[in-house]
């Protein structure tokens, strides 16, 4: 009844090609933005920021990044954790070397450094595909973690090999370090996520995104119609790594505050982000959000439910929680192999006809 194209007349091409052509969708989008920017920052406390919102926002950035590479361009990557580590260590080196420069610039530069590293490790994708490429990126993961552990220059020769984020401010508000208010943390990540998601959405709707999808669907056919595989694949690696690098920088500087490469950016991180993308839906920006929400919030929710409300022993709850999350993943993939984004698409189709389906 409300969710429909009928009656929503477009008189310009610009209107016709906008991201949310349906009026209801558009309002929903503005409402979410209004809540996220206008209401949440006033209600948020330390627990909600550190356990729920900040990790969700950061993992969303990483998931969008991986979705560009895997979902849109069809190149499987298991190097996400390693690329996040590049972002984190680049941010740390920049923060400590140029303390007077704004942290926002450092985070973006860290993304840039990661993009360069990503392109370097993306070069083999011109020759190898599928599982073989996955193994090459897996090598990147292990090599990068080893490098940051082995070379003391990266962690400024600290005794324990830990990197610690010193306090940095934007407009006089601390956004890294322990004195950061939850609202500042949240808003900093939210602004970056909003800008990057907007960028990703529009990239994938334009020429570049269409080239990526052409390569994904059939690379030889794409080459024949004039898509250059070199620039297309490498641009996908660069953009994807930029996103993941920014996510890594935020993960270290804003969320954790201190990090150790093997623990924070190990192979589990690569798999976690890959699962987010698969569960959320390959080739969908909304899917990246949904997948990140599912894998970040579900464990916290279950923990609060089992330990906080039901009073179970913590070890039993932790084991059951793993089983429930695992079970749900299997269930979702059987019921809807295209991920949560497909469920959302189906819901929208049904909504168009509601309440009078044929």
């Amino acid at each position, binding site marked *: 009844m409300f969710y429909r194209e009928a009656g929503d007349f477009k008189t310009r091409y610009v209107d016709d090609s906008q991201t949310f052509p349906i009026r209801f969708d558009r309002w929903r989008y503005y409402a979410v933005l209004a809540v996220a920017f206008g209401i949440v920052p006033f209600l948020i406390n*330390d627990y909600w920021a550190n356990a729920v919102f900040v990790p969700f926002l950061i993992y969303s950035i990483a998931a969008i990044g991986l979705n560009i590479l895997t979902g849109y361009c069809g190149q499987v990557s298991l190097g996400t954790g390693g690329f996040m580590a590049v972002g984190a260590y680049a941010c740390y080196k920049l923060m400590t070397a140029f303390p007077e420069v704004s942290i926002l610039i450092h985070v973006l530069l860290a993304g840039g450094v990661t993009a360069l590293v990503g392109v370097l490790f993306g070069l083999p994708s011109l020759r190898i595909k599928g599982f073989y490429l996955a193994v090459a990126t897996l090598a990147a993961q292990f090599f990068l973690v080893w490098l940051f552990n082995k070379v003391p220059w990266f962690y400024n020769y600290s005794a324990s090999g830990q990197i610690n984020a010193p306090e940095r401010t934007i407009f006089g508000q601390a956004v890294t370090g322990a004195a950061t208010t939850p609202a500042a943390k949240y808003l900093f990540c939210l602004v970056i996520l909003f800008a990057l998601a907007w960028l990703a959405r529009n990239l994938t709707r334009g020429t570049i995104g269409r080239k990526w999808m052409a390569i994904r669907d059939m690379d030889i056919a794409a080459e024949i119609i004039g898509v250059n595989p070199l620039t297309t694949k490498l641009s996908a690696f660069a953009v994807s790594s930029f996103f993941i690098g920014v996510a890594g920088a935020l993960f270290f500087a804003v969320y954790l505050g201190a990090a150790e490469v093997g623990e924070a950016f190990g192979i589990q991180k690569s798999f976690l982000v890959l699962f987010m993308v698969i569960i959320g839906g390959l080739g969908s920006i909304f899917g990246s959000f949904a997948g990140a929400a599912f894998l970040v919030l579900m464990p916290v929710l279950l923990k609060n439910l089992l330990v906080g409300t039901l009073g179970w022993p913590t070890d039993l709850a932790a084991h059951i929680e793993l089983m429930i999350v695992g079970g749900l993943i299997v269930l979702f993939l059987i019921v809807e192999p295209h991920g949560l984004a497909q469920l959302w698409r189906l819901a929208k189709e049904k909504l168009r006809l509601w309440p009078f389906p044929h």
Partner: protein
Amino acid sequence: MKTRLTALAALALTCATPALADLNIPNLSYRTGPFAAGGIPYADGFNDYFTLLNERDGGIGGEKVVVTECETAYNTEKGVECYEATKGNGALVYNPLSTGITYQLIPKVSVDKIPLYTPGYGRTSAANGKIFEWVFNYPANYWDGASDIVGYLLGENGGDLSGKKIALVYHNSAYGKEPIPTLTALAAKHGFTLIEVPVDSPGQEQKSQWLQIRRDKPDYVLMWGWGVMNAVAIQEAANINYPMENFIGVWWSGSENDVLPAGDAANGYKSLAMHGSGMDYPVYADLEKFVVGAGKASGAGDQVGTVLYSRGMYAAMVISEAIRKTQEMTGHAAITAVELRDGFEALEITEARMAELGLPNFGQPFAASCTDHGGPGQAMIQQWDASAKKWNLITPFIAPDEEVIQPLVDADSAAFAAENNIAERCN
């Protein structure tokens, strides 16, 4: 977006806050994952001691102690979540039993003004109370431990280690890397060669590391391991026939769980001990009567008396003594975290007091001060007897070489102070 909102609504419903307790002590424990073998006995000992105080004495100074357990799986992200989840309920002190989580929490507790107690682990330079106002790591820390082992080896070799080769097998993390600066300084001082052999977490696979040890033939192997890594290392050492009496672990690599899987091959393995273990202390009679016998034991109740159980109990004992001290100083029983910090700083544990608590000759006496948050740092050496399945203490307390450690502590804490703009206290 919809999923997110639904999940949030559900979260809000289930975020039940536990009732505000008089003395709330969170226990960030881990009973799952590759480090559970160490986490479970420690958490049990920690919980049981507070249960004993509640059941026998009605709490501390008449105030009941409520221990809220939160599972971290030795994972820093979950550790942060646990910290944020528990700190709102008036948490008095944190003891996360993880060096990684400790590094994460040091800046946070300093802002939230909650003491952090990390006995025998965490950031070593936190022993410098001038810089680390909220962190306490007495009675001993990693650098003390490294120096204690070298002190023991000096004694074994007639005071001369020049030309010897000593390998350090370590967990490749903040924890395992901690002793390297001290050992490097000691190697320069005593003329031995230090071979660094990192093992990536969790450490189930160590074939190549032990191949390297077999090739290099070090005179001694030291180990900074934890969880599953310990048992694997001892098994691998047995596989290459490395003489067990030359293999010495830190206090985190010296529990029953580490040596039992290797069976008889582990006989003679040594480790540091910063306190006694076993059931020969009067406190166990009370524990049996009020906690274990009464069915109130934490976990499965099968860890009582083990090395790590004793260490959890030791940590709980020091915390309870600090609370008592604070109650004395402030004159009221319901203390706050800020007041407790002063108690930690004024704490003195004497041998007489330990005996009163039912733990005679269990640990070293120490007294904290504004500058000294690290304690004397002594440790004993214990050796595993595989046929009796028992740890035997083979040395008295060995003192660390403060001449080497103090400058390192000062340098590291000064670096931390410079990075974070902290002014020195206690002047």
